[in-house]
């Protein structure tokens, strides 16, 4: 919402424009002083418009978002008192238990039936550190085997605190810096960028998954934001390091890998061929991966030296490789480095479960929606795998070609979002929680040039509210309706979105046709979502279709997300000047 700026913003430092001026500096529109905030969040920061000091506002913002996170954490987590396997909370706790107690070479092998470790090494190290700290506070929390399924209330407090601390160490600073840089790049004033920061940090889906349901997604997302932020600052090697860290924390960061690759490559080629930069990035990436697995490799060698095996039951014999078994044809299993190979292969096997199904549970992506029409189970797995691969590539290649050809800083979030939507909608083995991945870059758009304008708020808000809505069945399982309602409605209220206000699409800029089109399209979804909640709450599904409501949720969600994908792609084309701005094109893309 640059229009509500009290004074034209002058950045203290001018953004660097080293690369052929493709990031055009944007001039702030200095319009007449707006006297009333156009949505409640702006009202809350209204008194801060005149305050010049960022250091008064930022701590207050961080305290508020921290409070909301902690309060949300008072609610139950996934799998609370749900034997036999409990849920994600138990998985994370269990990893702390095994990493804190077992030798490193057994981490990826220990009792895989009970939440075996299936995340990359950085998660394992993170769990190890937290497990050691927790063990120091109370050894019962992470006692080997006997602590399984523990529901000690003070343990819950410890676990909740670890999520918040991890987030405040990684995601929050990364986002703060990104928002500051991105706003400055787009000529958005400090006050407006603070609005964006609050909106991003209060995203309901992230709080619900990480702080209520329980996971550490924000650590991975934080590394990705840090990587994007480094791209804005033109520190490409740091971008590579942060992205490797994200991948090393959660393999899901692969959703962004194509965009990272095409942006960095574009910056080395399209904007003037720069081989030394390309070489530097490649080298740093390789070194980062090396550093990532180094503790694991050294630990394995040390364990071997001490006579500790990955699988004690085998009594020293080398375990057969779960995948890539051809490797044993080339290297000797008795060689000193074989345990490392074995470890890495096992890690890859655990991290990428090719053997699992096309989708897990009910997720609002294309395949699950298609499944309601055609029973995909009747098709051979290989065909489905190929179809998934083909469709994913088809959806992600166009935005990434655009990003490669026009690697503009201002286009980064759009390209990331479009690529992640493509992955979410079409790829293999998608979780409903993965919706956080496309939502993150899309929400970052709020810090951009027109981030707080009606159109962007409407679309980013639509994606976020729809995303939170598709997570409802997951949250509903452990009775988290109240925090879901409170957080989602609060966010919608703050940003002036349905159901609290329907005015966002009509605020400024576009032609009346586009405004009405957007409003109608989105309103259809909002009404459907509201109606769905009523149905789900009061009408039991027919006995022969017990999953009817969940399936309906999935179908609507997939449709809405496809529209979000198209919007991001269309916006990307406009941002990179491949499309002239005009309402005709918009109508066609939709």
């Amino acid at each position, binding site marked *: 919402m640059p229009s509500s700026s009290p004074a034209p913003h002058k950045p203290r430092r001018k953004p660097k424009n080293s690369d052929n001026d493709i990031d055009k500096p944007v001039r702030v529109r200095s319009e007449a002083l707006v006297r009333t905030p156009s949505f409640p969040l702006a009202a809350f920061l209204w008194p801060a418009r005149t305050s010049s000091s960022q250091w*008064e506002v930022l701590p207050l913002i961080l305290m508020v978002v921290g409070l909301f996170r902690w309060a949300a954490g008072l609610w139950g987590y996934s799998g609370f008192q749900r034997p036999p396997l409990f849920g994600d909370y138990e998985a994370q706790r269990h990893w702390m238990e095994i990493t804190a107690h077992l030798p490193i070479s057994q981490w990826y092998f220990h009792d895989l039936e009970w939440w075996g470790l299936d995340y990359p090494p950085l998660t394992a190290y993170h769990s190890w550190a937290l497990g050691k700290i927790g063990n120091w506070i109370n050894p019962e929390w992470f006692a080997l085997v006997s602590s399984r399924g523990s529901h000690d209330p003070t343990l819950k407090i410890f676990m909740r605190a670890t999520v918040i601390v991890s987030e405040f160490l990684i995601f929050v600073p990364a986002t703060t810096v990104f928002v500051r840089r991105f706003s400055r790049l787009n000529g958005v004033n400090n006050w407006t960028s603070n609005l964006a920061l609050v909106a991003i940090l209060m995203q309901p889906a992230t709080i619900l998954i990480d702080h209520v349901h329980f996971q550490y997604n924000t650590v991975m997302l934080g590394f990705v934001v840090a990587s994007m932020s480094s791209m804005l600052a033109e520190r490409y090697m740091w971008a590579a390091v942060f992205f490797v860290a994200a991948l090393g924390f959660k393999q899901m960061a692969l959703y962004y890998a194509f965009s990272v690759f095409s942006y960095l490559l574009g910056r080395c080629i399209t904007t003037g061929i720069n081989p030394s930069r390309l070489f530097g990035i490649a080298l740093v990436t390789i070194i980062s991966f090396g550093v990532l697995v180094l503790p694991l490799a050294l630990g394995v060698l040390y364990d071997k030296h001490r006579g500790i095996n990955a699988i004690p039951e085998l009594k020293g014999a080398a375990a057969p490789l779960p995948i890539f078994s051809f490797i044993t044809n080339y290297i000797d299993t008795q060689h000193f480095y074989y345990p490392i190979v074995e470890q890495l292969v096992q890690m890859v096997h655990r991290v990428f479960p090719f053997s699992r199904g096309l989708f897990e549970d009910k997720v609002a992506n294309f395949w699950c929606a298609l499944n309601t029409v055609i029973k995909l189970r009747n098709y051979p797995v290989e065909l489905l795998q190929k179809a998934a691969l083909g469709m994913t590539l088809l959806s992600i290649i166009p935005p990434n070609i655009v990003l490669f050809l026009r690697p503009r800083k201002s286009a980064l979030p759009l390209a990331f979002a479009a690529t992640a939507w493509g992955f979410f909608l079409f790829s293999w083995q998608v979780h409903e929680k993965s919706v956080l991945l496309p939502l993150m870059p899309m929400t970052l758009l709020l810090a951009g040039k027109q981030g707080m304008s009606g159109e962007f708020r409407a679309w980013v808000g639509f994606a976020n509210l729809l995303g939170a809505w598709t997570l409802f069945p997951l949250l509903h399982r452990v009775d988290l309706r109240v925090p879901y309602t*409170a957080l989602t409605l609060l966010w919608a209220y703050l940003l002036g979105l349905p159901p609290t206000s329907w005015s966002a699409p009509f605020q400024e800029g576009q032609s009346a046709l586009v405004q009405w089109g957007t409003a109608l399209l989105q309103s259809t979804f909002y009404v459907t979502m509201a109606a769905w909640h009523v149905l789900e709450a009061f009408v039991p599904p027919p006995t022969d279709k017990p999953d009817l409501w969940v399936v309906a949720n999935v179908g609507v969600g997939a449709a809405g997300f496809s529209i979000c994908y198209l919007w991001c792609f269309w916006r990307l084309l406009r941002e990179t000047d491949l499309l002239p701005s005009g309402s005709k094109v918009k109508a066609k893309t939709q």
Partner: protein
Amino acid sequence: MAESYPTLTQCALVAAAFKVLLFPAYKSTDFEVHRNWLAITNSLPLSQWYYENTSEWTLDYPPFFAYFEWVLAHLARLVDPAMVRIINLNYDSWETVYFQRFSVIITEIILVYALQMFIDSSSLPTRRAAQAAALSVILSPGLLIIDHIHFQYNGAMYGLLVASLVLARCKSTLLQSGLLFGALLCFKHIYSYLGPAYFVFLLRTYCLSSRSIFRIKFLNCVKLGLGLGGIFAAAFGPFALMGQIPQVLSRLFPFSRGLCHAYWAPNVWALYSLADRVLIYFAPKLGLPINAEALNSVTRGLVGDTAFAVLPEISPRTCLVLTVLSQALPLIKLFRRPTWENFIGAVTLCGYSSFLFSWHVHEKAILLVIIPFSLIALTDRRHLSAFRPLIVAGHVSLFPLLFTPAEFPIKTIYTVFWLVLFLIAFDRLAPASNKPRVFLLDRFSTIYIAISIPLIAYTSLFHQIIFGKRLEFLPLMFTSSYAAIGVVGSWVGYMVVYYTS
């Protein structure tokens, strides 16, 4: 400038979302107290309300509050019938928690409405300051801790008080103000501490002519008398008809309690206890006799009954005399110059007196000072400098109410957030005073505020690490002594401001 942002409603809405998220937080026995009252009023006839004693938490609020519970109980029965059964002691199903917590949030609308009245009644130049003060009340960490975590209905009660105070601002609504205050007394009798200020103010401005204090306005006296009589009759009449007044009064005023409440409220007696404790070590040198019994009780400060080792015992009569004396002083000024500002000042000072000197004061009663004071704290910088240590001390003194680890970040971060936000805002909004400042405690207040940080760190973290479970009274003693210094200091500071302005 038509309206300043954020508005009261906006803040109340966002705060409500936060309060909803706090539903599963720690709840004190007061939660069960109120559930039990729902059960009593719903399942027993009026005649047995003040006799029922299945639970130890008997009904000990005046009748209007009982009627309020009776109304709530009708809804409660629909939500969960088991909630309103008397024998269901300590019943806390999810429905019960949702219902009771939600009722606190909903009834707080009264406070929002009253504060909006306050903003609207302020003159245009002071409206922004009034809005900031109103926001500070609706977002008060005191109300958050006491009402929405600990569990009580103070929001609604203080809403009635603020409404009554605001009504006193305009000559035409003086009668409503007095009647509303009368009704408030029938909800919760703790507000009778503020009664003297109301009495003097209404006597002077409503019952006596403004020109001469010897000309009595008889019609006004009759209206006020009849109105108050009617209200008290509505509250206590049914019980009077059944001859239950002695029983009701014995429930409302249990005189068997000790001088200091479970945790020492930060008042004069906390400092007195501290002095006593310190004197134990010096008594032999000074040749003072020591009461051996008091010395032996390790749990000093933790049980209701306080015995002093060196200093003389305090009797309820001493407390009463001190309270009345300290209330009388500001009332003389109020009688001579009955402006609204002086009235609010007198109400605040009555609150101070009762909090500082009364028998068995609860630390929750600090709101009795903070909330009336908020309405005039932004008058000028002199008022603000007395207000500042009060809000720090008053809110820190509430921390011991919540002792569970899960609520620790909420109470501390929220309070720090609130203090930072409003100390900055007040500092910008308070106009300079046209009277010279009295540098009595101003310079100390910054140091005083700064000390709170290591204090909170010690009481909540380091004490446990150093001493474990031993000397549990020590952090409580530190907190209440610290807070007592702040409250007493701000009282002295405000007394000076009150008399010199």
